């Protein structure tokens, strides 16, 4: 099983999680620092762990959100993800001068924001930058697309200002209670009994979630043994750096790691082997999609055989 860790972005805890072989950390905004900005900072302090900030879908500009996450993926060499925030606290809406949304209206808005983020991440095809000196063309304009998205509450023309993220699509992580399970790469189930987790995991898979994780608070209790085969991983909360190695060992095997060799020069690397950031001594484990066993999606605009 995969192990993920819920954090507020504390660098010491994130580095401990990386050393312990945690697949990804989620980053809340509870420290007072914006979770996306914190994740970007951590992208160059780590090299082998996924960085999944919680960004609120309904109270940010969807275009900025998609750009920020794509940029995180570029900065981290393909280790970015998005924990979908769907807070219905009226204070969050008042901060941006928007009418508060709850229930089905909020679910619909969150779904629209996920949809447009995914469209924007595909708005540049992988080979859109051609640098053709014979024609003078930097871009192939046929491979950079408007998205022309119309949602219930906003429209976006696109394309993104940022080239396609290294992972193609960042893994989208969110609770199975948001009403957007079909759009998630990782559905999170927050429940305390094996029976309830099992039932909701079956439903989440049926609804289209690629992976299902159980959220567990504190050091992993015995129930973890009984979750094997039920969920694909666990998202641990309230585990300290000191308790992490034991917790990870109790849950599952680590993905294979190599270490950034000492003396690695800080120089440009070709696109095929993205620099994943980090300092000497950091373990390297591939992109977050690779670690989770998720294929890199083809671009929806890519034309087969051309």
């Amino acid at each position: 099983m995969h192990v993920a860790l819920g954090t507020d972005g504390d660098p010491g805890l994130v580095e401990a999680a990386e050393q312990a072989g945690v697949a990804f950390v989620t980053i809340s905004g509870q420290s007072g620092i914006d979770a996306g900005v914190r994740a970007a900072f951590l992208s160059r302090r780590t090299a082998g762990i996924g960085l999944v900030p919680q960004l609120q879908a309904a109270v940010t500009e969807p275009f900025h959100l998609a750009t920020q996450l794509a940029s995180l993926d570029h900065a981290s060499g393909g280790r970015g993800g998005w924990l979908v925030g769907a807070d219905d606290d009226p204070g969050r809406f008042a901060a941006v001068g928007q009418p508060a949304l709850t229930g089905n209206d909020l679910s619909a808005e969150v779904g629209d924001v996920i949809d447009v983020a995914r469209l924007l991440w595909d708005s540049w095809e992988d080979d859109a930058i051609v640098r053709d000196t014979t024609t003078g063309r930097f871009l192939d304009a046929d491979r950079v697309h408007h998205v022309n998205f119309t949602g219930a509450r906003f429209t976006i023309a696109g394309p993104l200002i940022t080239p396609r993220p290294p992972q193609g699509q960042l893994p989208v992580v969110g609770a199975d209670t948001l009403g957007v399970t079909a759009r998630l790469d990782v559905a999170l189930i927050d429940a305390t009994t094996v029976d309830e987790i099992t039932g909701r995991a079956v439903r989440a898979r049926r609804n289209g979630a690629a992976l299902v994780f159980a959220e567990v608070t504190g050091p992993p209790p015995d129930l973890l043994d009984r979750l094997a085969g039920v969920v694909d991983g666990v998202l641990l909360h309230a585990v300290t750096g000191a308790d992490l190695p034991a917790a990870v060992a109790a849950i599952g095997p680590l993905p294979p790691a190599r270490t950034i060799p000492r003396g690695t020069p800080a120089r440009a690397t070709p696109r095929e082997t993205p620099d994943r950031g980090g300092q000497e001594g950091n373990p390297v484990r591939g992109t977050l999609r690779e670690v989770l066993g998720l294929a890199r999606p083809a671009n929806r605009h890519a034309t087969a055989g051309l």
Partner: protein
Amino acid sequence: MLHLGVFFTGVGPQLIWTAPDFADHTHIDTFVATARTLERGLFDAFFLGEGLRVRENRGRVFDLDVAGRPDAITQLAALAAVTSKIGLVATQNTTYNYPADLAHRLASLDVLSGGRAGWNIVTTDNAWTGENFRHGGWLAHERRYQRAAAFVETAKALWAGETVDRHDDLIDVTARLDVTARPVLFQAGDSDGGRELAARHADVVFSANTAFDKAVAYAADLTERLARHGRTRDELRILPGAQVVLGDTPAAAREKADWILREQITGPRAIAFLEQYWGKDPSGYDPDGPLPDIEPADGELDPSRGTLSIEHRTGKLERIAAWRARGLSIRELVVDVQPRHNVFVGTPGQIADEWARYLRSGAVDGFNIVPQLLPGTVEDVVDKLVPALQDRGLYRTAYTGSTLREHLELPS
């Protein structure tokens, strides 16, 4: 002392992507290498530009110039982790951001970087850009600086730890931040509204007035405006944008500058420049031949090719008539009229002497260098021009502070 920054635009014709050693300007490694080189050169600041829609040419993505840039604050937060001194300045728009959200992100960058964040405040009224945002093109042209001023006041109050509860037709926010911060405020607009915003709020102006006489006049104007707001010239740093072309001899520098200009104004780019004014396809015309004999389309310029300066928003037909009277080829005309940052061409000693003259005049406090070559311009400036400036006692030989405010010698 001279203060230096580099402005990494990320779009437009200035950056020469055809150079054989072009460093991929969208790759994180290029940003990391640039920031580290500038830190080695004891620069005050590394700036990122912003444009919230990919440039187009009559409805199609414009394909001749570099394009593709990251979210500025995200990228600078990554750079904060691998640098320790250099200031990190994000250009961010006041029209298509929420004040509490942007203030929070800038404060986060300031905290994580240890006081090295800056915000280059820009505005737009451009509805075409607005098509990427919830509000769309909501702000009338003449109100964009009112919104900017209200936005900056809101951000400053939030950074000071105050609760902001403001609801009018420019700002609608009830918020409080959990962190306090004080990013350095940059301002780049040259219109009357832009200058007023600078005089009221800016710590630094990224000025377009680089030619010596214009720089002197601009400084005099700003000094008067500052006084009206109870501020003095010493509370503001003036850093005009500048291109730099260095050579070992004056002739070598001139030769390189000519090459750079030829690469920047290629035949296809010259044609595309005219297309923006004609509003029709002039691709059948020879860039080294006379201007098109077809009549331009009605209507003023389309903003989708990038921000238009105030004087180019109207009077298109009169401008084209004047161009025709000059008898130049398409390319010669575009070389002459396409707006670009002032170019300083010479040996390191020549440019250092010229910048000493600027500094003595009091009109500028330094320059924001806009590279044409990556990594060439940045490495040349750090390895050749910086030592020449140091030899003349015009430039620091070590960082003495750790925050951007300290580097700029701004009042604490």
